[in-house]
């Protein structure tokens, strides 16, 4: 959402408001009645119960035209199960007969050689030599480390989710592009969807769709949809008016205009949405396997349950390998389509090559079985090395780390938490509203106030403050570490590919993989949680710092050089102000990432909103989970509103400075 300070108030009026604010602060601290510091319990409205029983009724007893709701949702679920199952049969399982102890395989699935070869052929066609190297390394990694079969189960559900999310996202995006009213609604809904933690809609999803791959599919699609919608709208808006007008003049009908002019032109921007959708879908693999989707996520969970951190890391890297294959191929395909490349003379259509390869490789795999299923004895593993490394660190560095942990916990985190917990609610609300008013004007102030009252009235104020404390500390650390790295990387163009690979890995490697070593070294509690959140939120911080710094116009830099600025002066007076709006958006993204990690952080024993959601999930409390999730969304939306307003304010002032 965007707020502009278009309500221009007269200066005296502004002064008066500030005077009022400070009087209020003074009043609350010194003579304020009790209810202004701790919110009166009588006002707390038991929303969670109502929501819970409402949803339970909806799922169990509601009827649409005489057909029970649950029957409708369950048949939708079995439809998707059918699609996923069919994909799994082709990619990973083969066809079986019999049940229980009497099963036997009739037809094997496609061999790794067939699938890997197809990926390689597609890579070569779309991306040439570079891409085929990347794809082959990823495929061989999965095969050699014995992850292939489970990777294919994951690939099946990921493919279906990604395609579904892209289709729905594209449709919603086009619809929003065509109608401003629709856009307003979808933008609001998508903002909330992006910030409500996935665990909180998992229970309702399970209630409606039952346990299994289809519930995981629905949850994943909800999670991965928003970036596709946002980017479709942005992409279509970025199509130059001249192009559209040209299409109209040629005599395109609306449908032709959309599909043959606007969408192809917008493809480059659409690719950003595709990338985000793929990354977010793979993010969900672990959570999906918690509710019965199987695959690589299950490998990670299984390995970590027996504290085999090395194997967990390998399975996690398997997820990264899948992400890289899918992302790089789809990027190359989009690039190619955007450039309008077609077959070169002498090239055969892709499908012919693939069919020939499938037949050829299946025959080979049938004769030479290691090409079908890689033998266990030929697998390699580095797990024992990683396990030994963790043990070594534990034995030798624990005491140093314990010192650092105690300092951070006792001197910084606890006091800050205590301060937030004991701050009177009315003061917190007043300060945030004042800040919102300063940054974005009247509308933003009202918006923030309403969101905060939702948290107060539903009774989640204390855990919400605990979340604010965790997020603030983690984001500060992530920005303090990530921005300098990003600044440095922006001046090292030769490191760009390596940096991108590491950042992609950080974003798709399941957090649980580094959460458990963190627990071993920093114990159960807030320090481990904060470390996990920092590691996850680091990637967007580095990315935005890189982008921000490289956005400064070369002309400006040259001017600085001519006028004899030192490097530090250039950074301080030219680069930094020019990059400030992007940097603020970067902070915003970092905060959003941190919010989405709260729930994972809860696994190591925090006492915040994430924990409330986790408990609700474990106890199948539909209402509590959703309401606590909405409170997380409220916090995220407040910070989003404030930072976006700050960014546009910074932009305005930079432009003003540049003009003068």
């Amino acid at each position, binding site marked *: 959402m965007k707020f502009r300070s278009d309500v221009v108030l007269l200066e005296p009026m502004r002064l008066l408001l500030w005077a009022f604010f400070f009087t209020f602060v003074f009043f609350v601290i010194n003579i304020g009645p009790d209810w202004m510091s701790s919110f009166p319990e009588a006002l707390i409205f038991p929303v969670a119960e109502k929501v819970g029983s409402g949803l339970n009724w909806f799922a169990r007893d509601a009827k649409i035209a005489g057909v029970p709701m649950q029957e409708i949702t369950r048949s939708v679920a079995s439809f998707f199960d059918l699609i996923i199952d069919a994909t799994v049969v082709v990619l990973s399982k083969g066809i079986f007969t019999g049940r229980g102890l009497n099963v036997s395989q009739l037809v094997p699935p496609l061999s790794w050689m067939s699938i890997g070869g197809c990926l390689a052929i597609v890579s070569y066609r779309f991306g040439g030599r570079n891409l085929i190297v990347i794809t082959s390394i990823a495929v061989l990694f999965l095969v050699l480390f014995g992850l292939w079969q489970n990777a294919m189960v994951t690939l099946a559900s990921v493919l279906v989710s990604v395609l579904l999310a892209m289709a729905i996202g594209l449709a919603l995006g086009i619809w929003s592009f065509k109608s401003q009213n629709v856009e307003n609604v979808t933008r609001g809904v998508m903002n909330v969807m992006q910030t409500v933690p996935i665990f909180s809609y998992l229970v309702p999803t399970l209630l409606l769709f039952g346990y299994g791959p289809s519930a995981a599919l629905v949850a994943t699609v909800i999670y991965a949809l928003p970036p596709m919608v946002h980017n479709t709208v942005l992409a279509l808006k970025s199509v130059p008016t001249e192009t559209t007008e040209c299409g109209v003049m040629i005599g395109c009908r609306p449908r032709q205009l959309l599909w043959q002019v606007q969408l192809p032109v917008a493809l480059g921007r659409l690719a950003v949405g595709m990338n985000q959708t793929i990354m977010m879908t793979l993010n969900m693999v672990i959570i999906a396997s918690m509710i019965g989707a199987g695959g690589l996520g299950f490998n990670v969970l299984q390995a970590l349950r027996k504290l085999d951190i090395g194997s967990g890391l390998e399975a996690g890297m398997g997820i990264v390998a899948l992400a890289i294959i899918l992302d790089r191929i789809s990027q190359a395909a989009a690039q190619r389509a955007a450039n309008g490349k077609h077959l070169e003379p002498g090239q055969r259509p892709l499908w012919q090559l693939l069919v020939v390869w499938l037949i050829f490789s299946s025959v080979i795999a049938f004769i030479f079985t290691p090409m079908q299923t890689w033998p266990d004895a030929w697998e390699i593993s580095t797990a024992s090395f990683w396990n030994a490394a963790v043990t070594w660190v534990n034995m030798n560095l624990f005491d140093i780390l314990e010192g650092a942990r105690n300092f951070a916990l006792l001197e910084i985190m606890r006091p800050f938490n205590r301060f937030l917990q004991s701050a009177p609610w009315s003061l917190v609300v007043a300060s945030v509203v004042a800040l919102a008013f300063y940054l974005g004007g009247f509308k933003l102030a009202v918006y923030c106030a309403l969101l905060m009252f939702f948290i107060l009235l539903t009774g989640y104020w204390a855990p919400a403050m605990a979340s604010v404390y965790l997020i603030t500390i983690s984001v500060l650390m992530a920005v303090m570490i990530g921005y300098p790295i990003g600044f440095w990387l922006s001046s090292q163009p030769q490191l760009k590919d390596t940096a991108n690979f590491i950042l992609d890995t950080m974003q798709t490697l399941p957090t649980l993989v580094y959460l458990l070593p963190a627990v071993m070294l920093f114990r159960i509690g807030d320090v481990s949680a904060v470390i996990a959140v920092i590691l996850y939120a680091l990637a967007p911080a580095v990315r935005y710092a890189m982008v921000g710094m490289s956005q400064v116009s070369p002309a400006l830099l040259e001017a600085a050089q001519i006028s004899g600025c030192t490097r530090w002066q250039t950074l301080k007076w030219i680069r930094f102000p020019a990059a400030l709006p992007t940097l603020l958006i970067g902070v915003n993204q970092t905060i959003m990432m941190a919010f989405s990690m709260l729930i994972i952080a809860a696994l190591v024993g925090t006492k915040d909103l994430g924990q409330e959601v*986790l408990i609700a999930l474990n106890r199948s409390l539909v209402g509590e989970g959703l309401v606590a999730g909405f409170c997380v969304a409220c916090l995220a939306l407040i910070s989003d509103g404030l930072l976006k307003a700050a960014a546009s304010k910074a932009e305005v002032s930079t432009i003003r400075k540049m003009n003068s």
Partner: protein
Amino acid sequence: MNLNLNYCASLVAASVLFTATPSYAGNVPESDDTIKIMTGDWTSIGLQGEMMQLILQTVGYNAELVVADDSGRYPGFENGDLHISMETWQTTQLQNLEKSVATGKVLDMGETGLAGVEDWWYPSYMKDRCPGLPNWEALKGCAEVFATADTAPKGRYIGGPVSWGDHDERMVAALDLPFEVIHPGTDAAMFAEMKSAYEREAPIVMWVWQPHWLTSVYDGEYVQFPKFEVDCFDDAAWGPNSADTYDCGKPYGWIKKMAWAGGEDVWPCAYEIVRNYNMDNDTLAALLKKVDLEGMSSTDVATEWLMANDDKWKEWASCAM
């Protein structure tokens, strides 16, 4: 008479052999409706659920595993969304199960033969540093040994995830133990701490349950609290603290099977198989080790065991033979 017995025995043997080929009694399955077997976030219920699923599928039923929470399962069973659970622990679920059975919608399907134990557990090396262990009163004197900077002067005790619904805080208060209860969000985090401490021989006391692989890999023992009796939870006068309840160790005892009452009419033979199922601690611990430490999937472990113990499961499933 003698001859008669022998004759009977060989007849039974022959019929078992014959029924080994899939020619099941005509009325099984009584219904094609899927039997939903509960599984949870600990290994043993998954493994035993897998076994029951395989048996039921082999004799012709449709069966599937459904994930549910230990304490959150009851509405599911009362509504018929869940049908069979292979594990209900007396230690944590006693009151919940009794309450649910009282509604008439849930059946107590008998004991598995397994005995559940859960309580405060410490590695053996702690005995030297806190003399007097395993007696619980020793903990009062050496809380400092178990303390960390953030809990000092109190000791640090790691309990289970909040959602597992335990009463460690009440126990600590009732027994006047100078300890702070720390809750992780998942069992994996608990065992990560134990691994870290055990490698360094560092002080730790944690909630550990059995059957579980941990006690067969790490050397240690349980703190001996005043032995649990039902009165301990109900009668303040009972136990060392005459003014408070919960002044005793955690309850330990049977692990029962439970089922949705409505299913008795739908799949009577399946319910009989569940009632007949039994298991013992040592066998299960050996199987759990295969899953948790050797990395076999529970399906493979269950299949292997059932293949090797053909006679056992076919006897349980005699109504389907």
